[in-house]
């Protein structure tokens, strides 16, 4: 091959060239990576094998740590103990180890540490926010709460009483009442139909032993997802994570939760309440990011009602019709099923008109492709607004946690704009036909709506007593 008598020269040159090329590629690659990493997230694996996604930032002396145990939420509440996961979130910070409720709370407030727990349908979560100078104390208290909570009788009773009065107070809130009605009718007998806040009869039944059992069963390492942001101490962080989470049980039982389909499709339910407005909540089946049409769905939702101002629903019923203060659609992504929901309120006389406008906008999106400009504007917002969601340590930790919860790759945000920009008007129309189907809607109304026919009257709010 080589015409030269000394091929070694070429080989050497070849090596040199290759080295330069590799170096150049590496350099450009790093440049490219540095330039396009929207949010630099690192994955850390601790000595005990726990994975954490971290975004370090020392511009402020603040640390935020957020975590969730998946499939450990109110879906797992026994039917007669609804509210158990919620009550666990209320009591886990009410005394641990040698510290009783007041001593534990005082240790938090003396160090300006915010430590809270929360329970959703699909998860049990926790949230720590602290100044850098108190981070050791914060993680020490978190470790105590997670590993040796006391569930003393006094704070457990106090938290139960607090929840009972919260429910009674909420019984004056039409949006809360509407949520009770739609959840019961749309989820039906599925575990998602449980009232995660508990009921007036279920809460008094819950014992400290129930709380302990729930914690030991479901707060396990195999379900754990952790995100951290802010002024983290890189020397001690991995060891700290092991100290907090390392001694939790390795594995919990598999929870069999079937995928749900919306029940009572096409039906309208009404709870009569003597107020000047009718609250409207609509749910219909949808899908999540495992589906190839997910980005088309995101854009469709934005155009239909997700945008708030500028959405078709807001333009039609508020800007043109003066029928409401606000109307929004949103995507609800649960682990075992997905929904698109619409919420609004209007004076009782306009309720029927409102319902027909909500459906008319659905039909329009099914029948006519969205305009190029409307789609381009929607894409600009969804891609351009991303940095606004990352302006505080908390928000950054939230973002990292939700990427993990939704099982998305660590560099997802870097490709987000490409996914959004690839969507066409035909994609949107296809998804509109699939999702925005009036026949699949369940509708809940609370108020005294005029001219509503074919609504099934509900005499007692479900899942409250």
């Amino acid at each position, binding site marked *: 091959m080589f015409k030269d008598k000394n091929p070694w020269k070429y080989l050497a040159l070849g090596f040199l060239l290759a080295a330069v090329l590799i170096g150049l590629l590496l350099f450009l690659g790093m440049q490219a990576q540095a330039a396009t990493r929207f949010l630099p997230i690192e994955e850390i694996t601790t000595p005990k094998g726990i994975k954490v996604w971290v975004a370090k930032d020392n511009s402020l002396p603040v640390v935020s740590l957020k975590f969730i145990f998946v499939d450990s939420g109110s879906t797992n509440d026994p039917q007669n103990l609804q509210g158990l996961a919620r009550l666990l979130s209320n009591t886990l910070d009410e005394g641990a180890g040698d510290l009783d409720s*007041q001593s534990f709370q005082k240790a938090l407030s003396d160090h300006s540490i915010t430590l809270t727990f929360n329970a959703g349908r699909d998860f049990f979560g926790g949230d720590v926010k602290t100044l850098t100078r108190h981070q050791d104390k914060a993680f020490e208290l978190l470790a105590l709460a997670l590993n040796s909570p006391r569930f003393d009788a006094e704070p457990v009773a106090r938290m139960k009483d607090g929840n009972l009065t919260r429910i009674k107070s909420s019984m004056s809130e039409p949006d809360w009442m509407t949520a009770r009605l739609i959840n019961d009718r749309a989820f039906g007998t599925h575990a998602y139909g449980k009232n995660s806040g508990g009921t007036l009869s279920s809460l008094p039944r819950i014992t400290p032993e129930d709380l302990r059992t729930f914690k030991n069963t479901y707060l396990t390492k195999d379900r754990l997802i952790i995100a951290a942001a802010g002024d983290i101490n890189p020397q001690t962080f991995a060891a700290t994570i092991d100290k907090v989470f390392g001694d939790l049980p390795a594995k919990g039982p598999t929870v069999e939760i079937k995928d749900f389909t919306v029940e009572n499709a096409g039906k309208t339910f009404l709870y009569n309440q003597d107020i000047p407005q009718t609250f409207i909540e609509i749910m219909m089946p949808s899908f999540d990011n495992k589906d190839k049409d997910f980005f088309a769905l995101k854009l469709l939702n934005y155009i239909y009602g997700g945008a708030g101002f500028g959405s078709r629903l807001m333009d039609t019923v508020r800007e043109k019709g003066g029928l409401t203060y606000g109307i929004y659609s949103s995507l609800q992504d649960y682990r075992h099923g997905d929904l698109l929901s619409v919420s609004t309120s209007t004076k009782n006389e306009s309720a029927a008109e409102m319902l027909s406008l909500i459906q008319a906008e659905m039909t329009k999106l099914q029948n006519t492709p969205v305009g190029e400009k409307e789609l381009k504007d929607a894409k*600009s*917002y969804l891609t351009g607004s991303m940095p606004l969601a990352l302006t505080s340590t908390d928000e950054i930790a939230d973002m990292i946690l939700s990427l993990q919860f939704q099982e998305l790759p660590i560099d997802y945000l870097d490709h987000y704009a490409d996914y959004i920009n690839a969507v066409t008007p035909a994609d949107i129309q296809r998804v509109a036909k699939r999702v925005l189907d009036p026949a699949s809607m369940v509708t809940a109304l609370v108020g005294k709506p005029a001219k509503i026919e074919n609504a099934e009257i509900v005499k007692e709010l479900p899942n409250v007593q």
Partner: protein
Amino acid sequence: MLIRTVFIFLLAISAPYAAFAQSFGAQEFTLSNGLQVVVIPNHRAPVVTSMLWIKVGRADEAPGVSGMAHYLEHLMFKGTQKMQPGEFSKTIKTLGGDDNAFTGQDYTAYFTSVSVDNLPKIMEMDADRLVNLNPPPEHFASEKQVVLEERRQRTDNDPRALFGEQLQSMVFINHPYGTPVIGWMNEIERYEWKDVKKFYDAWYAPNNAVLVVSGDITAEQLKPLAEKYYGTIPKKELPPRIRPLVPPAPAQSVLSLQSDAIHQSIYQKIYIAPSERMDKKDSLALQVLAEIMDGNATARFYKNVVIGQKKATSVDFNYNSSAYDYGTIGIGGTPAVGVSPEDLGKTLEDEITAIITGGVTDAEVKDAIQRLQDTAVFARDSVAGPAMIFGAALTTGSTVADVENWSTDIAKVTAADVKAAASKYLDNTKPWIRPAVTGHLLPAEIAPPEVSDVQR
């Protein structure tokens, strides 16, 4: 969810003392037409929050058209000679930004969060609508309907909200703060564009506004933009801001509302108190007092009333210092099962009396100050938050220096100051200006209390 944006900002307003920071590094300049500009640099993300605050609110309206300042705020999104109705918000969305507005008793504020490279466009549009508002008449009626729906949604649907509105009107005898920002239902119906325009022309002017920009920018970078977009707008002669005074009113006021729609009784009591503008020293002492009474789960109210005596499941002691005129102190709670609102009221008052007679300890004051200073550090962990803090302060009579020095000022409060402030403003036997107003909200099945005092 419908009012998420508004809710976040209400939270920020209701606890301004908790959010002030020791040093935001704010920069300030004033244009020759009187526009005050504050810049709070924060280079964490390439975004800014731009807020245009007008020093006019509900309390500056003429009688008979309550809530008109808020209606005007809605119409500010309905176009100018250059912009179509709705075009303002749509343009911002297309730039990847979010915008909204809110109205208070003393101010009206318009805000946009957007990437910093789009800030000039926002400033151009904000400057335009500051003086060139021109909504097409067909929008007057439909937007009035929107406001009526807003009032129904926020207030008329919920007996607790209606009750709160009535309590407030009882506290502020002869003063505009007694009228709700959204306005009374029957007066909303009466808005006419000519009245709105008169109000707008009188008060919307560069010399009655504060531009606050927080985020990835410096004063040096912002100044030429401010000059370009706002600098050419002429200043106006502003109407005097003469506010009525609350007269001494010796009678005790107890309001009670019993309703089928109430399932849980509530106790509330509202004291009139100085705002930071009226009396800075006392205001700082009251901020420390509020932290001692109800700053956390080990504070006096919760520890003694919820845990100790088990009279309530939740309690509240809040001090609103952010007002051009009077502030308020509100106490209240949710009575435990079997406890009447009067009984809870007496327990809470015993706690107040304990402060008036026995004072607070030096340790309580020291801890409270430390926690307040720490919240000031957390307040810097936001782009929109600091813009909110400076805007609310500067439109209610405080200065940039007041905000920047808050952490050092609050540290000067002593236990004696706290005791003196509690005695001056919370003593039922010798009230400041007028006695506190008490409210009992009751479910239908429980008989209301005998009220022998003057009931309004």
